[in-house]
């Protein structure tokens, strides 16, 4: 069998890739995609734990996380649209009027 730690390890790698992506990508949408990737990494952890434990709780949690991700996607994209309307750009590095 594939050990649990493999799943968790994969999840950790995906989470890491997502986390790194958030701060090296400049396109707001890509950043958002990376965040989604992180959420999915967590989901993998939850699902695999749930599966190995034989406990349904983890999968229900994932179900809820997906809902949240959907909601977040809706609002996040709305924010991106709204900012694009004003700035005609998706580059987050240009959005730095508030600082120091």
């Amino acid at each position: 069998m594939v050990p649990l730690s493999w799943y968790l390890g994969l999840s950790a790698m995906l989470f890491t890739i997502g986390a790194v992506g958030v701060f090296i990508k400049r396109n707001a949408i890509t950043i958002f995609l990376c965040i989604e990737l992180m959420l999915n990494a967590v989901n993998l952890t939850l699902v695999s734990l749930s599966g190995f434990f034989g406990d349904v709780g983890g999968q229900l949690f994932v179900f809820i996380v997906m809902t949240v991700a959907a909601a977040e996607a809706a609002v996040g994209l709305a924010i991106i649209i709204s900012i694009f309307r004003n700035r005609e750009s998706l580059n987050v590095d240009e959005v730095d009027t508030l600082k120091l």
Partner: protein
Amino acid sequence: MESLRINYHAILPETITASVAVLIMMIDAMARKIERRVAGTVSLLGLIAAAVAVASLWGRPVETYFKGMIITDDFRLFFAMIFLIVTFLTVLISLRWVEDESLPTGEYFALLMFATTGMLFMSAANDLVMIFLGLEITSISTYVLCGYRRRDLRSNESAMKYFILGSFSTAFLLYGIAFVYGATFNPAANPVATTNLQLIRERIAAPGQLFSGPMLLAGAAMMIVGFGFKIASAPFHVWSPDVYEGAPTPVTAFLSTGSKAAAFSSFSRVFILTFAAMPFALSTGAAHTLQSAVTDTLVVMAILTMTIGNLVAIVQSNIKRMLAYSSIAHAGYALIGIVAGDWRAVAFYLLSYVLINIGAFGVIELIARRGDKRVEITDYAGIGFQSLGLSSALSLFLLSLAGIPLTGGFVAKLLVFKSAWAGGFHVLVVIAVINSAISWYYYLRVIVAMFFAEAATGFKAPAVARSMAAAIVLALLGTLYLGILPGRVLDTLESARDQMTQTRK
């Protein structure tokens, strides 16, 4: 199998606020041009009703409902009251503003009510799932509120930064939850793994029952990141100055008080009442390591938070941004309460802090005028005697933030420091005290500008709407009440029961 324990009374406050949100949307949809008054009044009434519902839950036995998802302890209710007060005052200071800025009114109040619902769930949660959900409801609605002035670049930017960083940190929190869920696996128990806080507590407390100690620790660490972000503590505070500055002032007020208080409630619930439920001396193994690691980390974070908040606040010229840093510093003080493991002190701290801060932001909003134009401290030059009432109120709020006696800010600090001292965190108290002294400097700067500096040209005393006046007066009275006669509130808090006192069914 445990019964479902459906009890609508137990979620009545949340139900009311959510329903009011829906109701506002419906009114908004039906009447094309909704009067702000209607939406506002409905919100206020809803909040009062929710408060009544909270009050009606007070004193009932501490029990969990909905399969352990919800708990009705006084901890929850006290925090619920804080949230309701926050929203109530926010609604009051927003009433006129929404209209002046010609922003969608119904949605605004609806979002506020949704956010409140989320916060209420956060404090009511007895399960990590509920905490997560409540947190997300609060966060997502406040993302929207931050960007509410859609044409304003600063507002956009605020929303975007808050959104990116917020969801990023949520991912950490979630990952942490997943780890904790994994760590508490116990094949002999039912359920075998859990996100229920009480079960988690019991499994941590029972020696050798954990599936994986390191996972618990890593999970706790990531939850610290998640909550640390929400309460804006260093090094996860970086978002807050930008977001607070860019967000519309009433939203900033809400954000810096409500969502911070909500995060603190969950933080306390998880880290004080769950992870650190065992007396430190009695704990063993992973629980022991967890407690000491959490304490160490939070001590460092508290020190960093206070110090960075206060030091950087000194050099700010924008008053909203200055208050943002100030609220970072205050998160640091409140963290001391968490370090000391005294949620009552934290709760009182937050109660007084939210009153003061909303009051202060109310005045700032009034002076800022449409589109947040006058927010530089230099804009406050000489306005002291031109609008004495507002300036005096603001001064009092600022002094209270600085911790002057006779105001809530002082009693709150005293309580927190006292707990920390009793817990043996002497150095922390001294550092906090030095920080308080530093903070005086920048709070005074505003007073200096208002009263001592030469009048800047072009200031007209703003007309104060009745709702706004009510909000400021309420905040003022609250601040003074907590400072002069805190006895009742403190008695209430002292007798408040938390989940620890529950007898499990």
